[in-house]
């Protein structure tokens, strides 16, 4: 077993957990400092683990000293080329949200809850073992539920969807295991897992819980629950490796529909939070679509879009949250004219919004180009629909920008300018978005490598699942996914 030089994954998970314990009950300022430190430590560990993995030139590695080897099935924590950038990305998302939380909003946004969520998210991203992954995904749904209850909002929509997700996921895994042992026919377990993944990803028509969550929970918690794209991660670990082609076809078709539908709803949405939820859903669906195309271009594009959506949509949400924390809930059916009151946030809103739709010069441009190219290779119609969804999202983003920041003179007398921590968050995100846009090759090359490995894994899985069939190459399998039969 190849090991990292230090138990970095365990430290990345432990840091926010310890932080959560220390921050619980502490004074607001102290709790904030603890949360920032813990999150920064977690980010550092994630980054070091990524570089460590690159330095040992291995596709995957476990923690050194295997502190968790006593668990049934051995040490479940592993970092590979796929998850290596996702772990620090998730830590960064948590760090920036905590950093940009104003002191006045500390009572509404639970720092302890955020740190516990961070630990769960990082543990999820560092796990491939299906049962552990399913358990962590289930655990991840608890903090938002508790927050909804604490805020006096009904958790019914969220709980109904997540309950169904958990039920289908565990049933599917159990049936799949029984089918592997020959006790049950193949296919039922895969169908259950596929449906569970679609619910977690917000696939149409089971997506309603996402705008509902954004409307009822705190904006920060909602962003942190959605932007790590754990649904896509579950699809990658639980569906892609050994599921039949029909499962991939189903996910790709539903993702395409979701991308189009959500883009359309983002266009007519009147509430800023719900607009953000639809935009995020539309963009996140593109990640799932590319992955389930199961071609090299599609997969590479999807993994690149994953990073760009993670950064851009976090920044976009963060900006919207910063604006909301100053003027309250934003309506998009009127002009708010906030540009001159918060020029920095206006600039970041436009930058992150454009990055999310793949505008040139931002991190999303090349990612989306590769994804579209991959989609067209698999099925030209999908490529065209993807373009339509992106075009609609582009129109929606600019509409939101104009509605929030322009159209009238803001007449407030209170200084609304970004605070220093917010400016730092803005600067970090802008540099990452623009840096990734100007120098895309390293990121693309790393994602290409991961995509190749995942496809090879799928190929070996397909061969194992279909021993009586003639051996086919990955590309042949991939090409057949969208071929009518």
């Amino acid at each position, binding site marked *: 077993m190849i090991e990292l030089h230090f138990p970095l994954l365990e430290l990345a998970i432990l840091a926010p957990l310890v932080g959560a314990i220390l921050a619980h009950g502490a004074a607001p300022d102290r709790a904030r400092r603890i949360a920032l430190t813990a999150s920064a430590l977690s980010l550092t560990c994630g980054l070091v683990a990524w570089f460590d993995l690159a330095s040992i030139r291995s596709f995957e590695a476990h923690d050194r000293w295997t502190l968790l080897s006593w668990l049934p099935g051995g040490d479940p924590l592993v970092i590979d080329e796929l998850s290596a950038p996702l772990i620090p990305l998730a830590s960064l998302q948590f760090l920036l949200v905590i950093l940009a939380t104003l002191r006045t909003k500390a009572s509404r946004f639970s720092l302890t809850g955020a740190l516990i969520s961070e630990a769960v998210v990082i543990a999820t991203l560092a796990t491939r073992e299906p049962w552990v992954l399913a358990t962590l995904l289930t655990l991840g749904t608890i903090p938002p539920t508790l927050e909804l209850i604490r805020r006096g*909002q009904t958790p*019914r*929509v969220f709980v109904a969807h997540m309950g169904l997700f958990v039920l289908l996921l565990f049933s599917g895994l159990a049936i799949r295991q029984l089918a592997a042992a020959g006790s049950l026919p193949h296919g039922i377990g895969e169908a259950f897992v596929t449906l569970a993944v679609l619910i977690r990803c917000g696939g149409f028509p089971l997506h*309603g819980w996402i705008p*509902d969550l954004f*409307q009822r929970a705190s904006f920060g918690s909602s962003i942190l629950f959605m932007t790590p794209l754990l649904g896509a991660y579950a699809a990658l670990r639980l569906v892609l490796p050994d599921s039949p082609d029909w499962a991939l076809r189903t996910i790709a078709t539903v993702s395409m529909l979701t991308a189009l*539908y959500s883009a*359309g*709803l983002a*266009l*007519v949405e*009147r509430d800023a939070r719900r607009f953000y939820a639809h935009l995020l859903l539309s963009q996140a669906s593109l990640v799932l679509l590319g992955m389930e195309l199961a*071609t*090299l*271009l599609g997969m*590479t594009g999807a993994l690149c879009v994953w990073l760009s959506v993670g950064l851009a949509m976090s920044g976009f949400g963060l900006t919207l949250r910063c604006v909301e924390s100053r003027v309250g809930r934003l309506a998009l059916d009127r*002009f708010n*004219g906030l*540009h*001159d009151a918060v020029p920095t946030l206006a*600039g970041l809103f436009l930058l992150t919004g454009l990055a999310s739709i793949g*505008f*040139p*010069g931002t991190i999303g*441009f*090349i990612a989306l*180009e*590769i994804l*579209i*190219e*991959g989609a*067209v*290779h698999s099925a*030209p119609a999908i*490529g065209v629909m993807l*373009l*339509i969804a*992106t*075009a609609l999202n*582009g*129109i929606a983003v*600019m*509409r939101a920008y*104009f509605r929030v*920041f*322009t*159209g*009238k003179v803001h007449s407030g007398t209170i200084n609304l300018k970004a605070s220093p921590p917010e400016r730092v968050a803005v*600067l970090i995100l*802008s*540099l990452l978005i623009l840096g990734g846009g100007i120098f*895309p*090759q390293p990121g*693309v090359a790393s994602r*290409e490598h991961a995509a*190749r490995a995942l496809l090879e894994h799928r190929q070996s899985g397909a061969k194992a699942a279909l021993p009586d069939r003639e051996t086919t*190459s*990955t*590309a042949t399998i991939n*090409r057949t996914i969208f071929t009518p039969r």
Partner: protein
Amino acid sequence: MSWDTVLATAGLVVVIAPSLLVLAFCATALFTRQPSERLSARLTQAAVLAGLLASSLVLFGMLTTGNRNVIVELGEWVSLHPDETGEAYHFHLKFVFDRLSVPFVLLTFILVGTVGAFANNYLHREKGYGRFFALYSLFLLGMVTAILAGTVETLFLGWELVGLSSALLVAFFHDRTAPVQNGQRVWTVYRVADAAFLIAAIAMHQLVGGGDFAALTGEGAWPYAQASIAPGPALAIGLLLLIAAAGKSALFPFCEWLPRAMEGPTPSSAVFYGALSVHLGAYLLLRVSPLIQQSVPLAASIIALGAITAVYGAVVTRAQTDIKSALAFASLTQVGLITIEIGLGWQYLALIHILGHASFRTLQLLRAPSVLQDHQSLENALGGRLNAPKHRSDRSRLSRVLYRFAHRRGQLDGTMDRYLVTPLLSLFSGCQQLESRWLGWLAGPENGAPLDALPKTTAEASDLL
């Protein structure tokens, strides 16, 4: 030092100068407060001057050496290795200096430099001075990239930058609602055009295995290259590019965004919508002109679209009551004529027409704010009326119909709103209502939050977009 090295270096400077200008504005926006007017003006002057001198040097080198097709290769910006089926992705940065791009890029630097100097005084102490020059730099980079692009991806990159800067400049006076709504409209039309462009680019990749224009239009210097592509695919790709060009150049039926774009400050109206941006679609058609010659139906479509636009512009401009709208529709007439020339295969004539029209229109638009004063000065000097209006009551029925048509600008936007935008928005609004009811039911009667009725009328839809 050989001429090849000189040409390559000068070519690089042409591209790098506007890139550095954009980076400078980005850096100042990110790390410091807004740059002073003096600094903005100096940076802009330096970048434009460097670009102009370098492009002049390229022209001189081309005339001296007789090389009419100078290629500046920057290599692969992004590349993915092919898999077993040969699927690969390359974003090749390649810039071409030829008989088409060099005059166009020189025109760009001259007009942008002139208008920059004009804007420096015109917008002095204006609140959005810094924002104007930041967007101006983005526009310059977009134009130069699009004009010199040797691959369709590079052209798309520049094309998008031009689109963004244009839309934001239309909405420059963003304290008012009308400029913002017009900016949104321009952006929407551009997104439609961009989608068509991207589909064409992808089709091109599928067909010729890459985005290099040389693969599509044939090797050789413009305009003598011979496309080797079959007429059918040429028609398909050409029609998509025609939609893209129609969106960018405000050809029929996208004509109405051009007068809307005049809502921006006069310098941007002059250089973008009067001179450069409005010709970018025509430039795209010129760039792929060998492709047009491969397909008679494609050429016929281009001529027809150009003719409709020219007639439309000529009729509508006569009923406009403000000078900038009249100039906008007059520009459309000329762009329509240029499009006809391209369809007929008269590339040089079209190029000369673009150069002349862009320069003349820039001058007209820059003079537009003071035209009333000029008029009154002349009348005072003459002691009488100039062009006294003729009051005629015996106008023919056709004349009255045409007047009404021109006065309403053919109701192009209204028709598109009614038959395209409103049904689409109504569909999504209906879905939203259904979704809201479903979630309301799921959340329970006391927790549901049903949404208000959403816009369904054309006027509301138009406002929404």
